């Protein structure tokens, strides 16, 4: 479904992603691990068009998406959430959701129909309940705790009903109590919808519980790729990612 072919990205002398190749099939759930600065987020930025590769190409469902803008990549069926939530901080939680629903239904140029249309509000309400945000619907996003913002950021990407969902540390900042409940709701729903899911995560509990395949990064390169238990057991991964030995 996604083919990353010999992709590199350099920032000056630093090669943040160095000749990386990765294939992810339809419906797969892939967890990416690695230390800070190992190239995980840069890879997500390259796949979703936020950054352009220095070399290599990225193919999505047979279409070369190398260099396409985020908007065009999104239109092809790819959505993402961010390490630092990207939200409309001065608007309410419900406003954020309704804007996403309106744009996904192709109404972004509509200047006449209210965004608070009853069917859209019902849909938003269901989604807020799913993500445990219903009682914060009227809250301004800037007043939400970090965990709430993170969950909302993921919710916005899910609204797009993507074929591929990329999440950058979806549970960082979310309380230990809530992170599993959110992921327990979200991940099976993505699985049922055969959504290909790639998520970057530091939390090994999350990785072991939800990923089918793990990809370990170090120094901009993939150092291990395979079933989660196998990857986490490898000495080079334990040394580079977990800091052991």
């Amino acid at each position, binding site marked *: 479904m996604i083919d990353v072919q010999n992709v590199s990205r350099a920032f000056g002398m630093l090669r943040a992603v160095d000749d990386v190749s990765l294939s992810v099939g339809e419906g797969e759930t892939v967890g990416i691990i690695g230390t800070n600065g190992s190239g995980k987020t840069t890879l997500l930025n390259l796949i979703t068009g936020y950054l352009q590769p220095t070399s290599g190409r990225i193919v999505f469902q047979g279409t070369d998406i190398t260099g396409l803008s985020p908007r065009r990549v999104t239109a092809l069926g790819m959505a993402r959430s961010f390490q630092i939530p*990207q939200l409309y901080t001065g608007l309410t939680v419900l406003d954020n959701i309704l804007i996403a629903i309106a744009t996904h239904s192709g109404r*972004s140029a*509509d*200047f006449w129909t209210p965004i608070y249309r009853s069917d859209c509000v019902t849909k*938003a309400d269901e989604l807020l309940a799913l993500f445990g945000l219903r009682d914060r619907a009227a809250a301004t996003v800037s007043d939400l705790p970090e965990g709430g913002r993170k969950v909302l950021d993921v919710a916005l990407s899910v609204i797009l009903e993507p074929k591929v969902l990329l999440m950058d540390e979806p549970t960082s900042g979310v309380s230990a109590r809530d992170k599993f409940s959110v992921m327990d709701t979200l991940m099976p729903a993505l699985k049922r919808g055969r959504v290909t899911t790639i998520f970057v995560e530091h939390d090994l509990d999350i990785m072991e519980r939800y990923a089918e395949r793990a990809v370990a990064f170090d120094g901009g390169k993939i150092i291990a790729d395979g079933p989660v238990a196998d990857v986490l057991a490898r000495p080079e991964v334990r040394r580079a990612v977990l800091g052991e030995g």
Partner: protein
Amino acid sequence: MSEPTIHRSLPLAAISAFAVIAILPLFLSDWISFLIALALAKGAVVLGVVLLLRGGLISFGHALYFAIGAYAVGFLANRFGIGEALVGLPLATIISALVAAALGLLLMRFRGIYFAMLSLALSMILYTVLIKFYDFSGGTDGLSVRGFTLAGATPARPGLVQYYLVLGLTAAVIYVGARFLASPLGYLMQAVRYNEIRIEYLGASANHAILGSYVVSGAISGLGGALVAYLIGHVSPELAFWVSSGDFVFVAVLGGTGSVFAPFIGSIAFEFVKNYALKFSPSTWQLTLGVFLLVVIYFQPQGLWGLLTRLRAKPQ
């Protein structure tokens, strides 16, 4: 779940306010009625500025559309002898929208000070054209707007007819503005202010949202300019001058951006303060206006509309 706005009880308040304004000519002198009509017409231009301000974009060139709307009816009346408002007003609105669509393609790529300065530059180009091309525009003399008719009839009291024409169209502009602000494009324009990255990752375009808003803004500003041309009966290049644009931004800040009513409240306050300042202190009227704005900003940063909503909220 319902829309969390402060506008729920507004329709009744708005209808009451319009009813009061509608009967004012019965009690007030002609010049005060004229001043109110002028303020409401200019309020439409200020609303155009506010629609962009909500997206974090300051247009220091909205006098461009004000002048285009005014000159459209000026040309129609002066060159073609058509003073019919039912022709002039839609024509001025459409021409303004088309110009906004063309210039918006350029402006939508800019933000912050660059957007403000480029919009200012465009309005000054029009100002220069109007000054220099005398045969075309009448130069600094401008053009007179004669032969006002409405639905083919020449009113016995044109001032009064124009007053109600402005009032009716103000209601229409407020309705359109309210629909816009509550629409996906209106919300997306606010989103531009907060996070363009998320807009792009929702598959929408921040630039397109700005373009759409700019066209709506330009159209209603053009309509406001056309109304002013009929009211004053004359158009001149000063309409496109940067001072006019500055006044619209001034009034936008004065009225606030919290509601579609705010620009009209700000505009009425501005016209009255300005006129009375001119009357009582002709050599320092700008100082009076400046102090007035400073006081409002200092004590009520959300403008006069913020003051009204605070007063409305207090009894509860």
